[in-house]
């Protein structure tokens, strides 16, 4: 790649022209046109569901637009497959890891090599070194992918996306699960790549990142491109002005309904996250829930929990931080009673409940708000009303002599629908047709009634729209204010810092550290723990 001064480039390297993509029930992309230039970072902002992911999958050749087309260097191109995207030099780093954890870094990188009969290991090593230099990171090719810290994994993902020589690099929410230290390193890598004339698309929902890293900002909302800030405008505007105009574009006429400005800023993470609860001391109180060295059965497909211990006291929110897939789901299911313990004990109010089942624990007040809302939390074919009493099948007053008491069920459902503001056409609508946010509200309504004492929230705001994120966090906070105990599992560090009294770190299924959330530097301290002892 011969480098030329970026300023002189006029033809965009890649152009999206009037692209429209529809899915049943939604228009994911509505007549979107965008230009990507060499040596520029183009930030794409928008809520969940704004259509960012669809746009990427069109560029990556995973989906075809219904209308509109793509131009590469002024030429109309048809990106019919991921291979076609690669051949055009479009590399994508997805939000979720695409590395195979049991393979080495080098093996992962060489997965797409189709050149000869034998693998060109020497060439691959050289390429890795070259890319490592470009990124400003040293990547050890022989390390197992699973042994890498998350920041390093991401560097490998970027190297993988650029393996065949990228001209356009798309980063899909690359910072969402990174520690502050890793974010700083990523920013440095992006700056280096930019200097080497790559065109970078940086997708985020955090305004401060867009401002600090972007040359151009585009805002998507409900599938439409609602706002574009050019290079020139971005340079001469202050962060405040940009924030103002972006928030206007993101929330539009909804801004009033979102609430005051401060709230909108908070949920768009325009400022640093900080603990929003008054710090309390829980040391004197007896724990409601005590996990004592609990382990889950070995599994070939996921990391089991190994000897995990934590105490949760009344009114306390204990956050569980960690990279996704490090034993969080087995941990939640062990506490809920959905899995059998292989060792350790669980105490509730001092009583050993290790061998009691899901139902018994529910009746004691242990509740689990699952992260798999669609397939575990609700039964999509059943009505909203039945889903709201799904954990009380056969119990009075909703069932009598084995038969459902429809009046009691409807009464309960009506009460929950209005008090948790579940938006549904009526009580007998199939629950599967509700939006993700309303399904989450349905689950919260079900779990937080009938005397909950300890609630496990597993990624409670993952994939939700910003308004619902704010509401869910308020519900979690209110529950703890009223004396409830919370085990909050999340991969969103800002969320953990905002809500938790204490944050414990899970790594490889083990408890690997604890941070009391009492100062401004909590995120950094958790980040240090994540990076490990070195």
């Amino acid at each position, binding site marked *: 790649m011969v480098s030329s001064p970026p300023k002189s480039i006029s033809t965009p390297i890649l152009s999206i022209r009037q692209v429209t993509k*529809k899915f*049943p*029930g*939604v*228009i994911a992309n509505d007549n979107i046109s965008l230009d990507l230039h060499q040596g520029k970072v183009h930030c794409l902002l928008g809520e969940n569901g704004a259509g960012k992911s669809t746009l990427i999958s069109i560029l990556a050749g995973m989906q075809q637009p*219904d209308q509109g087309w793509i131009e590469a260097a002024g030429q109309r191109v048809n990106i019919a497959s991921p291979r076609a995207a690669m051949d055009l030099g479009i590399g994508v780093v997805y939000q979720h890891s695409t590395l195979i954890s049991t393979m080495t870094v080098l093996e992962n990188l060489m997965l797409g090599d189709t050149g000869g009969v034998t693998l060109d290991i020497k060439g691959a090593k050289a390429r890795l070194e070259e890319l490592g230099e470009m990124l400003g990171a040293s990547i050890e090719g022989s390390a197992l992918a699973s042994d890498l810290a998350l920041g390093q994994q991401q560097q490998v993902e970027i190297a993988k996306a650029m393996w065949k020589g990228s001209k356009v690099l798309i980063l899909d929410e690359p910072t969402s699960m990174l520690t502050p230290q890793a974010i700083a390193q990523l920013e440095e890598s992006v700056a280096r790549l930019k200097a080497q004339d790559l065109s970078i698309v940086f997708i985020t929902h955090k305004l401060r990142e867009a401002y600090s890293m972007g040359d151009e900002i585009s805002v998507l909302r409900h599938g439409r491109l609602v706002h574009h800030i050019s290079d020139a405008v971005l340079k001469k505007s202050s962060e405040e002005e940009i924030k103002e105009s972006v928030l206007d574009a993101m929330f539009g006429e909804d801004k009033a309904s979102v609430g005051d400005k401060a709230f909108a800023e908070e949920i768009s993470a325009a400022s640093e996250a900080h603990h929003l609860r008054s710090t309390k001391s829980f040391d004197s109180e007896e724990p409601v829930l005590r996990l004592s060295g609990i382990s889950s059965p070995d599994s070939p497909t996921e990391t089991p929990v190994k000897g995990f211990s934590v105490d949760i006291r009344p009114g306390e929110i204990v956050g569980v931080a960690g990279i996704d897939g490090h034993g969080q789901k087995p941990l939640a299911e062990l506490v*809920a*009673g*959905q899995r059998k313990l292989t060792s350790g004990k669980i105490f509730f109010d001092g009583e050993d409940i290790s061998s009691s*089942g*899901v*139902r018994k624990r*529910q009746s004691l007040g242990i509740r*689990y708000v*699952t992260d*798999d809302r669609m*397939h*575990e*939390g*609700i*039964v*999509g*074919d*059943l009505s909203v009303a*039945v889903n709201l009493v*799904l*954990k009380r*099948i*056969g119990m009075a007053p909703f*069932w009598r002599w*084995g*038969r*459902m008491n429809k009046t009691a069920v409807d009464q309960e459902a009506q009460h929950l629908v209005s008090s948790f503001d579940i938006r549904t*056409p009526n009580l007998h*609508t*199939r629950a599967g*047709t509700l939006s993700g946010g309303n399904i989450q509200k349905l689950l919260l309504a079900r779990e937080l009634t009938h005397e909950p004492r300890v609630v496990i929230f597993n990624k409670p705001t993952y994939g939700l729209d910003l308004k619902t994120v704010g509401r869910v966090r308020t519900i979690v906070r209110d529950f703890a204010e009223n004396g409830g105990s919370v085990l909050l599992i999340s991969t969103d560090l800002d969320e953990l810092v905002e809500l938790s009294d204490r944050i414990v770190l899970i790594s490889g299924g083990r408890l690997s550290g604890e941070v009391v959330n009492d100062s401004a530097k909590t995120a950094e301290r958790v980040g240090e723990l994540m990076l490990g002892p070195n």
Partner: protein
Amino acid sequence: MAAEGGLQSPGTKTSSSRTTKVVAGFVRNVLPLALAIGTSGIFLLALGKSPAAFYGAVIQFGLLGTGWQRSIIMLAPLLLYGAGLIVAFRGKLWNLGYEGQYLLGGVLVVGLAPALTQSLPLALAFIILMAIGATVGGAWTFLPAVLKAKFGTNEIITTLMLSFVGIGITNMLIRGPFQNPEVTVPQTAVMPLDTMFPKILGSRIHIGIIIALVVVLILHFVLTRTSFGLRLDVYGASPKSALHVGIDVPRMIVIIFLISGALIGLAASVDMLGLWGTMRANWNPSYGAAILPFVFLARLNILASIPFLAFYAVLATGGALASQDVGLDSHFLLVVVALILVFMSIIEYIGMKRDLGQSYIPPGLRKAFASLLSRKNEGDS
């Protein structure tokens, strides 16, 4: 097509008026039958037979005269059999071992019947024999059920394999302990007519149809109106959800299998005590495969399965004689049944696409058409 479905969620369709619902239900459930009968008629023409003569004979032998009585006699075991399949399928447990469960239950009933009906009061003997049939049928699902519940072993394989074992044991029993000593062909002793199910009001119909109707109606109530039925549906919809809401999943699996097998065993008892009174070696009515399309057409609803199974009973009793009448192999009936399955699948596919507001043509096919068309246009220009 995509534009039409643009902003319409699948849920809005369900709120449309009652008549459109009835029409949609008719199209989805009855149209496959009509199309299968029509297409079979074309096949008949191709074979040089008259469709009118064949279907006329089906109605004549299956419905008119005493035909309706024969059809009802056949319906009795089918109702129980169908209910057995429906219970398992509602839980998305694919009990495909129905033949083994049926034959093994049947052979023990018919093998023990002569001794029991002679030594005990008839009513008591019937109850005990039916209990034996149900128990054996249920027991034959127990191993697959436990394997599924404990280790998640695929029940399609285990039930199917055990079915072959069951058929084998049935034949061994007929040639061994239950062999009728008076004849040389391998078959069980023939029950005297006066020790079989009594007939209803001077007709040929035995009381099996009443037993079957009572059992399936009770079961329908249990499945649709009770907490057990809801738990079963939750498990069927998502085993993950079932575990999450606190249903004892392993127990649920075993119960579903036991009920399913017991109903099929009961179907065999009714069939043996009411109609056959004996079993020959290598005899297999293969009801299961034949009624499979009908329980799906009934949307796994027991009440809805009654008319569909009645339709099959008429088709089967009438068809067996009708095919002789016009000089066809009796396997022609299986062609009709298979066509029902084919048309049902096509109509389901179209209906699903319609609900989603998508094109009826699969994307691959559309692409092929599009490329053909564009090539043609290029040639024109």
